[in-house]
């Protein structure tokens, strides 16, 4: 079962109705759980405890429910080691020893840098299954690799040495390893090691150990100032004290600068820091950069480590952290194509996975667009690549193939036919489809040079709702019409901006400025006359709005909803105008008032025009509202209400 499926489950689904009625605290606790609040989680845990007191021998339904709750918690937060311990105990109670051992093993995989979990696991394993020597040795080796260099890993080493001693395995190699590691308890192991060597009368070795001890002591001394200040080394949901990440960062900077050869140590400190600081982007970045810096060219193993690390970061960090993900994608993109084929394939694979993750979590349009652009570039390079040295026939066939692939993906999405087999089809959504369409048009127009087909595409897609707000699509369209110097179509396009095509004001401004320039550089006075002057001023005066490419573009800048003639139009129906927000909020934006007015005012008439007959009585509008205070419009709440997301 995938993580997503676990999280989507409803733990209460299989329970009897009577059970649900009898245990309202437990049921409500789970239903109202706030996954971001540790107290809420602890309350649910406590209610599980209470439940198991009421039902000391729970039935299978209850067991399943409890297990789901734990799995959901631990899938979300694998670093909550207390929960793993509790879960192990409960699994023991429910299903016995093997199940609890399995849980512990899961724990060491989900939270691989936890000393607690490793010690618990090894303890249970060696005590209860001492004959599984192969498994034990394999796990010890794994443990050493993951937590051996942890400053406080002495319980682990103690366990290993104890197991070896009990089973008559030579401990000298292990000691020899430990005394090189800067541990909090380093002195203890030196003493023990020397004792053993003494009993074996290996004087020469003792001398060597002394020397090692001296070096190690110096190292421990050097890192102690950092180690001693660390306050929180465990994961919690409550906010981390601000100083903690800084302490880790300083510690790591010190190590990278001064002890660059102690790679195991640096890596171990990185991994430890990412337990409390697993949501701190800067530390992930630092870790990734450091790992990248170790890379020798063509070293597949190291490359894999970098890739895995990047992927881990992408999956752990909060969705809103863009920098790490973007720089990781950027790195992959840059790296591709410079390495051996095997490495390239690997990069492409990780790139695809990262893109898929990111497309799911990033809601912002700009991000969706960047990501899709990156994806298409990589797709073209990996699957439809061509080079200038290939024959023109081969190049063309690659490009055609690529276009066809794009076309079919778009068709599938628009026709809702996605069968899930097409890679790209799975990634397209309403926000990023514009990028794919633009790519298709770009290929058709500039690469395959099929102008007719290009126009067909523009005609077909421009009616599409998803594209009404796409800067990429309309910029491409604008470029295309520019290349044909079709001023009629361009004028219409400019008029539609802001009225039926909605782009950000900044983009509209850029287009307007460019179009004005383009028009003046390429058009002629007679063309201007026939499209603008004659239409408006000529004998067949058109009151309809004609977009003047020279003046209209100036008016529309910073005011995309401006349309020629609209200001004039408002005088035709003044009452409408008085009802609008612009009039009612005049002078005090945000506060709407109905100002009293004289509806038959004579101030625009000259006194002479009355021809010595007194004016009539004035009539009023909104007189009764004269003492009302304006209503304050709360745009913030309004927009929140209209967009609950």
């Amino acid at each position: 079962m995938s993580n997503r499926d676990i999280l989507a489950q409803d733990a209460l689904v299989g329970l009897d109705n009577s059970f649900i009625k009898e245990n309202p605290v437990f049921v409500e606790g789970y239903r109202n759980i706030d996954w971001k609040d540790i107290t809420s989680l602890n309350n649910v845990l406590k209610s599980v405890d209470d439940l198991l007191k009421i039902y000391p021998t729970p039935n299978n339904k209850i067991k399943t429910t409890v297990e789901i709750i734990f799995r959901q918690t631990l899938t979300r937060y694998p670093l909550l080691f207390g929960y793993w311990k509790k879960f192990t105990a409960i699994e023991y109670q429910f299903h016995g020893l093997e199940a609890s051992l399995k849980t512990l093993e899961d724990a060491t995989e989900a939270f691989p840098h936890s000393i607690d979990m490793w010690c618990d696991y090894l303890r249970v394993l060696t005590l209860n299954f001492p004959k599984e020597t192969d498994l034990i040795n394999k796990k010890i080796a794994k443990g050493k690799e993951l937590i051996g260099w942890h400053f406080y890993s002495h319980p682990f080493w103690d366990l290993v040495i104890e197991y070896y001693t009990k089973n008559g395995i030579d401990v000298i190699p292990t000691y020899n390893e430990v005394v090189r590691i800067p541990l909090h308890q380093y002195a203890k192991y030196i003493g023990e090691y020397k004792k053993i060597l003494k009993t074996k009368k290996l004087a020469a070795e003792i001398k060597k150990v002394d020397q090692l001890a001296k070096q190690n002591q110096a190292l421990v001394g050097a890192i102690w100032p950092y180690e001693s200040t660390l306050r929180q080394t465990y994961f919690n949901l409550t906010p981390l004290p601000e100083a903690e990440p800084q302490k880790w960062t300083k510690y790591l900077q010190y190590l990278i600068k001064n002890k660059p050869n102690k790679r195991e140590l640096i890596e171990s400190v990185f991994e430890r820091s990412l337990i409390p600081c697993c949501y701190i982007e800067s530390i992930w970045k630092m870790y990734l950069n450091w790992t990248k810096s170790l890379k020798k060219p063509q070293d597949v193993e190291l490359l894999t480590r970098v890739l895995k690390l990047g992927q881990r970061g992408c999956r752990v960090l909060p969705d809103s952290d863009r920098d790490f993900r973007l720089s990781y994608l950027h790195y992959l993109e840059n790296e591709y194509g410079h390495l051996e084929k095997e490495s390239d394939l690997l990069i492409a694979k990780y790139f695809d996975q990262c893109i898929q993750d990111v497309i799911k979590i990033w809601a912002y349009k700009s991000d969706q667009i960047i990501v899709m652009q990156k994806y298409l570039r990589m797709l073209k390079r990996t699957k439809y690549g061509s080079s200038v040295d290939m024959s023109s026939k081969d190049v063309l066939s690659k490009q055609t193939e690529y276009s066809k692939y794009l076309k079919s993906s778009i068709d599938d999405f628009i026709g809702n036919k996605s069968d899930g087999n097409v890679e790209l089809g799975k990634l397209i959504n309403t926000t990023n489809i514009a990028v794919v369409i633009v790519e298709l048009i770009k290929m058709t127009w500039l690469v395959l040079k099929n102008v007719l087909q290009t126009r067909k595409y523009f005609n077909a897609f421009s009616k599409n709702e998803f594209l009404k707000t796409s800067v990429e699509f309309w910029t491409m369209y604008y470029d295309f019409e520019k290349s044909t110097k079709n001023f009629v179509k361009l004028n219409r396009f400019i008029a539609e901006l802001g009225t039926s095509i909605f782009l950000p004001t900044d983009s509209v401004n850029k287009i307007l400025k460019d179009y004005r320039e383009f028009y003046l550089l390429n058009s002629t006075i007679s063309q201007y006359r026939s499209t603008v002057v004659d239409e408006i001023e000529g004998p067949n005066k058109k009151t309809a709005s004609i977009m003047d490419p020279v003046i209209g573009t100036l008016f529309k800048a910073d005011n995309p909803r401006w349309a020629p003639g609209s200001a004039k139009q408002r005088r035709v129906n003044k009452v409408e105008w008085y009802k609008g927000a612009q009039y009612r909020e005049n002078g005090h934006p945000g506060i709407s008032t109905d100002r009293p007015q004289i509806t038959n005012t004579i101030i625009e008439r000259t006194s002479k025009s009355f021809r010595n007959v007194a004016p009539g009585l004035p009539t009023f509008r909104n007189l009764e509202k004269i003492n009302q205070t304006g209503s304050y419009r709360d745009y913030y709440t309004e927009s929140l209400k209209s967009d609950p997301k």
Partner: protein
Amino acid sequence: MDKYATIINDEKFSKLTLNVTQFPKALVHWEQLLDFLLDTAAPINKTISPNVLDLITSTYDSMLFNLPYLENYHIDYALLQYKLGNISRFHQIFKRALSIFNQRSLVLWVSYLRVCNEIVLDNKQLFRLYENAETYIGLHYHSGLFWEMYLNQLTLRCSTKQRYFIVLRKALEVPMYSFSKFYAVWLKHVDEIRDLSELPLLISKEDLLNRLQIDVKFSGRRGPYLTEAKKMIKKFTKELYMVVQAQVLEMYNLYESSISTQFYTGPDTILPLQEVNTWLEYTEYITTLDISPLCHLTFQRAITTLASLDTIWIKYADWLIDVEDDYTSAKNILVTGLGLSIKKSNILQRLYSVLMRLDDLDSLENTLQTVTSSFQDSIEQSEDFELFWDYIQFQMILQNSTPKSRYEGKAEVAFLPETILSKIQYRIRHAIDNKERSTLLNAMLSLQSKENTKLIENDIFKYIIESSLTKYLNDCVFWNVYSKLIFYDNSLPYLEKRKYIVKTIWPQIPENLKTHEDIKAFALEYLPEDIGMLSK
């Protein structure tokens, strides 16, 4: 020695005249010169020697030629002539001054009318002036004084009361600072009415009958009937008062109270930003109210105060175009603004466009010619890029429009007329900043057509490379635009374009630029497969 000789031999005089010739737009020097002249020439009366008077009038004339928006000096000048008995000069000076302000200067009108009250004996002639003033400045926020003068003259000079009441009734509705004074007068008149037959002076008969049900020819007991009628009239007066009061207070609270400068202060004085913003917001407010004469008047007030600022001229012109659909007035405003505003390029841009819209191509060509001759025909040397660039754009559309025969046969050898190309090349060499450089380069893409890519490449891009213009060669934008130019060339097959970009253009990119992130912009968008070739 006579006064004239005293003046012109005075060292101070020569120093002051030197100052104004050197700095003709500096108000302070003009003021010093004028003060000196008037002091020295005192007492000024009809005995003044013609030489001295000539000196003074020509000083006024030149001062007002250079600084035409100085309302008070127009008045001083006119009053000086009045004092000397030169009545026709007096009228002439006021008329000229009013036309400079598009007839919309309250100070000028009030000062003018005040004297006219005394010297214009013909009633018709005088009231024609008042009617004119009413049209242009009747809605001024501070027009109270004008209305008082108007009513006063009507009382003095008219035998009937009709016109007087119409003017008073109109004044009641004008949102002006001293509005309540007129209500007091109005109510006093209402009280003074002795008979029903006088009521139509205040309100039209139809409305009296239809809306207030007052029959002027009532045949019953007229006394109590009249009292009732007065009550009703007072009621509507009160309502009108409330509405106008609300309007006046709104204007006062939002804008009028924060305005401290109402007059032109010369190009050297910089108004506080706060004040400038108040004026700009005030015009915004008034145009939203959309009372056409009030809009004109407020804009005129704003341009008088902010005359050195291009924004306000453009705002007025834009309003004239957009709302009033009056391109000719917009043109006039822009032309005046061009003389008074410190920054010219934005006003010119509007002006060129308006002239084109008016189909007034002669003026357009003349304006372009004037602009370039103010740079000794080398507009490319202007510090203001916008000024240069607008000039080029409008020159282009004019050149494109000249009959083809002149360029026929040459079409293949030029994508730009020779004169313009050389100006652009000069500008390319001397561009001030990156923004300007990228505008110029991108404009070259705008000029691309089916046939001319090679020409643009040779005349611009290769020209830049051959001239080793390092500012371009070390800027990623140049290489990206260059690549785009080739890629957008419709006359070449795809692979050929691609090969040319990858194998000919890219190898010319300087080494230090090849690792720059921005250099990839073009490749990322159009040739992602070849991105590796960039660093080779």
